[in-house]
């Protein structure tokens, strides 16, 4: 199978439309930028205070005051704009952000997301994640389907939540699942897996869409 992260990132990139303002989380979601179709313009927001984020610079072009929310050097594209943290989160909470893409420790069939702490083990803080998940028009969880076999797509999250009922779409290397009032709807499947295999790797009961589309990989 080709690189799992690339499969996920490529599929996520199909979710955007021309002119969308999008916030990509740290790690796998950052890779999504590499797969945005050239036919559309997507504006990337960085919650530390700008829109119009571009790719990482050459070493010689690194500017210490120009980093993404994970403190990694980035660039700006023509037309970019900087602002303070209050405006940055006004954009996020105020209905101006079309989509946010984040990873998850757990996500469940009600659209609850847990991705900010493991009690007693890891408490890094929520940073901007709670605002992003609460405020973005579309919340896309992009992650490997399991954590080395341990199940992450739950009937109900057991870890502390980042936000309740905000997730719209879950995209993994196995398929695409939409959060609906009836539960998780498996809309697309990676042809390298069977529905049974996807269900086996998922605690929540999957509703299989008809027709079930083949995920482009």
């Amino acid at each position, binding site marked *: 199978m080709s690189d799992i992260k690339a499969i996920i990132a490529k599929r996520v990139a199909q979710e955007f439309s021309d002119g969308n303002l999008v916030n990509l989380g740290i790690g796998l979601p950052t890779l999504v930028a590499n797969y945005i179709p050239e036919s559309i313009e997507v504006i990337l927001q960085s919650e530390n205070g700008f829109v119009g984020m571009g790719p990482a610079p050459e070493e010689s072009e690194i500017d210490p005051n120009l980093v993404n929310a994970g403190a990694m050097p980035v660039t700006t594209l023509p037309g970019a704009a900087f602002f303070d943290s*209050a405006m940055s989160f006004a954009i996020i909470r105020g209905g101006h952000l079309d989509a946010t893409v984040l990873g998850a420790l757990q996500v469940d069939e009600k659209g609850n997301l847990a991705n900010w702490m493991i009690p007693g083990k890891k408490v890094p803080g929520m940073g901007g994640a709670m605002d992003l998940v609460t405020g973005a028009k579309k919340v896309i969880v992009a992650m490997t389907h399991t954590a080395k076999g341990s199940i992450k797509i739950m009937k109900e999250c057991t870890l502390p939540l980042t936000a309740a009922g905000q997730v719209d779409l879950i995209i993994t290397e196995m398929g695409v699942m939409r959060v609906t009032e009836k539960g998780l709807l498996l809309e697309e499947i990676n042809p390298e897996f069977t529905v049974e295999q996807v269900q086996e790797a998922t605690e929540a009961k999957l509703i299989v869409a008809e027709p079930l589309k083949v995920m482009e990989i």
Partner: protein
Amino acid sequence: MKKLMNIDEAAAHIKDGMTVMLGGFLGVGAPSTVIDKMIENGVKDLTVIANDTSFPDQNIGKLVVNKQVKKVIASHIGTNPETGRQMNENEMEVILVPQGTLAEQVRAGGAGLGGVLTPTGLGTVVEDGKQKVTINGKVYLVEEALKADVAVIKALKADKKGNLVYDKAARNFNPLMAMAADLVIAEVDEIVEVGEISPDMVMTPNIFVNIVVKGEK
């Protein structure tokens, strides 16, 4: 009114037990020179309000490592393991706040508001112990305003009256903190004559800034 001071004069205003707002996002836009002087002066029992506690060997992170902080209010502590250790061993109190909420709490503090209403944190541990209000059928958390005895901020440039200009993503929390403290110390890379910064380009008006100090880098 003379606002220009040397680093010793400026840092002497920061005293044991004070609540101090420190600008910066993972160290970008943090007032490193003043913080180094705070470490040299050994001021202790500080309550620090900042987006994050940076890295152990940088600015705010060093204050934590040096055990000068009794309480931190921040959105993220994951890049400084020492903050987590002191929190787990009950050596330091840590209050984690969603980043957008923190920005608004500081803004509200400087704007004469008692607090803000936000949907961020609903259905999570963030709502514990907080009031909720319903407006037009939507539920919000009440998040109280934050103020400080001193705000230490970082800008690219100041004129001799204290008008400030920030650089790229180094703006972040700095303009908000400039409004929310009894005393505001601005560390800058460059000090210019009054009039050299066009009034249209001023990002923080001079009336908020009490002390301007030249940073060492």
